[in-house]
C-alpha cells in the first residue's frame, strides 16, 4: 500500500479532510495542540525556492560586514562554492559611519546607497531575503521563514543583540520603552534615524550618551558620537550639553585623543563622567541611576550591554565561558567546537577583538580562505584580523584620530591580546578626517562592488 511515496491528489484531499475533521472535533485541551502542529508545519519541511546547488553549498547568514566579506571572498578563493546569502533586512544601511550623519558630514545615501543585489551579482552568489529561524546540524539544514536550505557549510554572522539586564533593566516593559524611546543606535538603521531626529530637534538641556562595560560594539563609537552631537550643538548654538556616562574607569580607547577633543573643542558642551555603572533607568521620569547618583536627562541614547546575537543562543551554540553569550568556536578556525561545517564570525565571535567593521572585514577574508581550504581538504595558517578604526572628533573642520591594531595569541596566558605593531594616532588632524570617509567608502566598495 505504502510502497509508492507519492501521494495522489485524492489521497491529499482525504488526508486534509481527516485533519479538518480532527480540528473540528477537537475541543478543549486537544484543540491548541492541533493548532500548534498546523503552525509548525508552515515553517518546516518546505524547501526554499533556490536553484539546485552547483557545487558545495555555502550558506551565509547575515549580510553585514562579516557575511558580505565572506560570501564574496569564499567564492573567489574557491569558485566551486555555491554561495547563498540569507539576510533578514531588505535594505542595507551601514552601522559604521552612522555617527557622521548626526553632524551632517555625510548624508543618508552615503550609508544606504549600497544594494545587496549588486553585491550578489558582482560577486557571483545568491541573495536570499529571509530570516533564519532554526538549525538542524545533524541534517545540515537551515530553517528560514522562507523555507529550508540544505548546506554543506554554514557561516553564521548575525552581529550582536542588546542585553538590557546589564544596565539593571530586566522587565520587558521598561526594556521595550527604552528600545523605542531612547534607542542605543548600534544595530538597526531605524535607530539611527530616531537619534538624528533627537539631536536635530533638541530644544536644549541635557543629552546623555551612555557607554556600557564589557566588549561592546565599536569601543570608540560612543565617544565619537558625543563629539558629533556636541559639534552640532556648538554650530547651531543649541543650549545643550552632552553628558557621557561611562561604565568604565576611563575612555576605553584613544583616551588621549578623545580627552583632548572634549577639553579643547567642547569644554562647554561635553561633560565626561567615568566609573558610572548604570543600575537602572526610570523611563517615565527620565532618570538614569548609578550606584551613588541619579541623572535626569532631557533626551538620551542609552547603550545597554552587548551580547552575541540571540540566534547563537537559540541554536545552542553559546560558549559557556563567554559572559556575553558569544559563540563556542575554535579561536583560530572559527568552526563550532565539534562541527567543522558550521562557523561563527563577526561580532558574535568570543575572541576579545574589537567589534568593528575593519575587524569583521579582515577576519572575513581569512575565514573565506579557511572555508576554501577545508572544502579542498587543506589547512592554512592563522592570520590576525586588523582593527583600523577612525573616530571623527571635530566636524568643522573635519578632524579625526585613529588606531591601527593587530592581535597575537599568548600561549602562556592562553589568550589573545594586541600585537606589538599596534599603533595609536591620537593627534587629531584633517588628513585623518578625510581618511575617515575614504576608509568607509573603501569598505563599501569591498563589500558591494
Amino acid at each position, binding site marked *: 500500500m505504502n510502497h509508492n511515496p507519492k501521494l495522489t491528489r485524492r489521497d491529499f484531499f482525504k488526508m486534509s479532510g481527516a485533519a479538518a475533521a480532527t480540528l473540528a472535533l477537537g475541543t478543549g485541551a486537544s484543540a491548541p495542540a492541533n493548532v500548534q502542529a498546523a503552525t509548525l508545519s508552515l515553517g518546516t519541511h518546505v524547501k526554499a525556492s533556490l536553484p539546485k546547488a552547483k557545487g558545495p553549498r555555502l550558506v551565509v547568514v547575515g549580510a553585514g560586514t562579516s557575511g558580505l566579506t565572506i560570501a564574496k571572498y569564499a567564492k573567489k578563493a574557491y569558485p566551486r562554492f555555491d554561495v547563498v546569502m540569507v539576510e533578514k533586512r531588505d535594505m542595507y544601511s551601514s552601522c559604521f559611519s552612522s555617527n557622521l550623519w548626526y553632524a551632517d558630514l555625510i548624508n543618508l545615501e552615503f550609508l544606504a546607497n549600497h544594494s545587496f543585489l549588486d553585491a550578489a551579482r558582482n560577486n557571483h552568489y545568491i541573495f536570499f531575503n529571509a530570516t533564519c529561524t532554526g538549525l538542524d546540524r545533524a541534517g545540515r539544514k537551515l530553517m528560514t521563514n522562507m523555507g529550508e536550505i540544505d548546506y554543506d557549510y554554514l557561516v553564521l554572522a548575525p552581529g550582536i543583540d542588546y542585553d538590557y539586564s546589564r544596565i539593571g533593566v530586566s522587565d520587558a516593559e521598561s526594556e521595550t520603552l527604552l528600545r523605542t524611546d531612547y534607542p542605543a543606535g548600534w544595530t538597526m538603521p531605524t535607530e539611527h534615524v530616531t537619534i538624528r531626529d533627537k539631536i536635530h530637534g533638541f530644544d536644549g538641556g541635557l543629552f546623555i550618551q551612555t557607554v556600557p562595560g564589557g566588549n561592546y560594539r565599536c569601543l570608540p563609537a560612543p565617544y565619537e558620537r558625543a563629539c558629533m552631537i556636541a559639534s552640532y550643538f556648538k554650530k547651531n548654538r543649541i543650549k545643550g550639553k552632552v553628558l557621557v556616562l561611562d561604565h568604565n574607569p576611563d575612555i576605553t580607547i584613544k583616551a588621549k585623543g578623545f580627552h583632548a577633543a572634549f577639553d579643547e573643542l567642547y569644554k562647554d558642551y561635553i561633560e565626561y563622567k567615568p566609573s558610572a555603572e548604570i543600575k537602572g533607568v526610570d523611563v517615565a521620569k527620565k532618570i538614569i541611576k548609578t550606584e551613588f547618583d541619579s541623572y535626569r536627562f532631557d533626551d538620551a541614547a542609552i547603550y545597554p550591554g552587548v551580547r552575541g546575537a540571540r540566534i547563537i543562543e537559540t541554536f545552542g551554540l553559546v560558549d559557556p565561558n563567554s559572559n556575553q553569550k558569544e559563540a563556542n568556536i575554535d579561536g583560530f578556525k572559527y568552526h563550532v567546537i565539534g562541527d567543522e561545517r558550521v562557523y561563527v564570525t563577526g561580532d558574535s565571535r568570543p575572541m576579545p577583538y574589537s567589534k568593528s567593521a575593519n575587524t569583521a572585514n579582515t577576519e572575513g577574508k581569512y575565514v573565506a580562505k579557511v572555508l576554501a581550504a577545508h572544502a579542498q581538504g587543506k589547512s592554512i595558517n592563522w592570520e590576525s584580523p586588523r582593527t583600523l578604526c577612525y573616530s571623527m572628533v571635530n566636524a568643522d573642520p573635519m578632524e579625526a584620530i585613529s588606531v591601527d591594531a593587530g592581535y597575537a595569541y599568548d600561549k602562556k596566558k592562553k589568550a589573545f591580546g594586541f600585537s606589538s605593531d599596534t599603533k595609536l*594616532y591620537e593627534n587629531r588632524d584633517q588628513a585623518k578626517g578625510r581618511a575617515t570617509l575614504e*576608509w568607509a567608502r573603501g569598505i563599501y566598495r569591498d563589500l558591494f562592488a
Partner: protein
Amino acid sequence: MVACFSKQAQATELTSFARVKLVDAQGQPIKASALGSAEAYLFNYPYASTPSFLINLGKPAPDGNKLVASDGNEYAWRGGVGANKSVVAYTAICAHQLAYPTRDASLITYNPNTSEIAGRGGVITCCAHNSVYDPAQGARVLSGPAAGPLSAVALEYDVATDELYATGVYGGTLFDDFFKAYKTQLNAELGAGKARELVTAMAKVVPFAEYSKVRVQC
C-alpha cells in the same frame, strides 16, 4: 584550465597599451632630467580615467626584484628609467580597496619626506587604510592591508631626446575592478562610457598639486 591560466598570466605580464609620449600642459615633451623630485606628477594612462604617478625618486631604482601580484603570480620589476634610472611610474589606484586621486582630493600620495605611518620618506602611502608602498622597488607593499604592489607603468626612455613614453601596464592590473566600483561616479564626471576611452599618442603630465586639490599625507 588553460583559459584561466592565461588570463591570470596576462594580469601580471605586460599588457601593452598605446605607446604614448608624456607631454606637459602645452603639449611639449616632458624632459626626464627636468622632473623635480620634491613631489609626484600625475598623468592619465592607459584610460582617460585612470591616473598614474610619475615620480623622480632622485636616486637610481635598480630593476631585478621579483614581486608577487595580488593574484599570487610572480613578475619582475623593470626598474627606473632616465639618465639616472630614477624615474618610475605606477597606476595611482590603491591595490587594497581602490582609493585613487580625484580632482577634489587624494588619499594615495607620494611622500618624499617622512610619512607618519611608514616612519620614513620616499614612500607611497594610502591613508584610507594605511597601505605603504616602496616606489624604489616596484611599489612592493611595505606594510598595511594591500595584497599586492601597485601595478607598474612600463616606461621607455629616449636617451637622445631625454623624452619619456608609456607603453603598457604590468604587475596585476585592477582596471576592471576600478570601472566596476566607480561606474556611476565616472559616468557622472566624464560622461557615459568615457571612462574606458584609451589614451593615445600623448598623455598630459601635471604636478600632483594641480591634479588633486587636497593631497592627504599620513
